[in-house]
């Protein structure tokens, strides 16, 4: 427990971060910027897990381990996404989401 800080302080920050990520997901067309927004969203979720673990259930480490697994899955997701983006760039020479409208050439 941290002196002077409640669970609400952390939840407000992570909520705002989550919705900033969603806004970026909507307003950007570039695939890499969309990936950056997804990373923001995942990070805010990790903060939430840890805060609930620390403030409400400090007798176990469930939130801690789920955060660990989220970070691992985010790494896998980022590597596959980057591979896909490079492949798309090789085929159509840009990475705008609007131009990726065919599954197969």
């Amino acid at each position, binding site marked *: 427990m941290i002196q002077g800080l409640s669970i609400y302080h952390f939840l407000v920050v992570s909520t705002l971060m989550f919705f900033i990520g969603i806004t*970026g997901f909507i*307003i950007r067309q570039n695939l890499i910027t969309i990936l950056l927004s997804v990373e923001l969203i995942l990070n805010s979720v990790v903060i939430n897990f*840890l805060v609930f673990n620390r403030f409400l259930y400090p007798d176990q480490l469930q939130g801690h381990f789920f955060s660990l697994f989220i970070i691992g899955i985010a790494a896998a997701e980022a590597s596959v996404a980057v591979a896909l983006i*490079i492949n798309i760039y090789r085929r159509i020479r840009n990475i705008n989401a609007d131009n990726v409208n065919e599954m197969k050439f």
Partner: protein
Amino acid sequence: MTLPVFMFYLISATILLFSVMTIASRKMLRSAIYLLFVLIATSGFYFLLNYQFLAGVQLTLYAGGIVVLIIFSILLTSHISHKFKRPSTWKLWMGLTVLVIGSATALWVILLQPFSKDPALKTVPVTMHLIGNQLLGLGKNGYVLPFELISILLIAAMIAAIVVAKKESN
């Protein structure tokens, strides 16, 4: 104001400022660097919450690994001085509406919710010993199954990334 409270406000200001700049910047490399700042500040949160191991994981895996991967892909796929065009007004308004309505609703629900901790629960110190035992434990509070699943997932992702990004030989 004690030091942890001051650090909390400093870190949250950094996180919010650089999150907004990540999505608002029109140069892609700058967006990635702002995201790096967000990730480092987030690991500050983990230190504040006394999860030192996870803060280290965040710094090495996210700030060290994923951001480098993203910067590589930016350098491979676009010109460094390339600026995006502004998003269309309709999209901008849609995004801002989602931001305002969504965060207002979520914050309304969160701030009205009385979170109460069961006072009988004792705080367990997060030591490396405990983390290691639980991560590879089979019994109660053991996480060996997701640990093994994630190792399979990681190797599948690695092979998939190589196969997808490989140049076709023709």
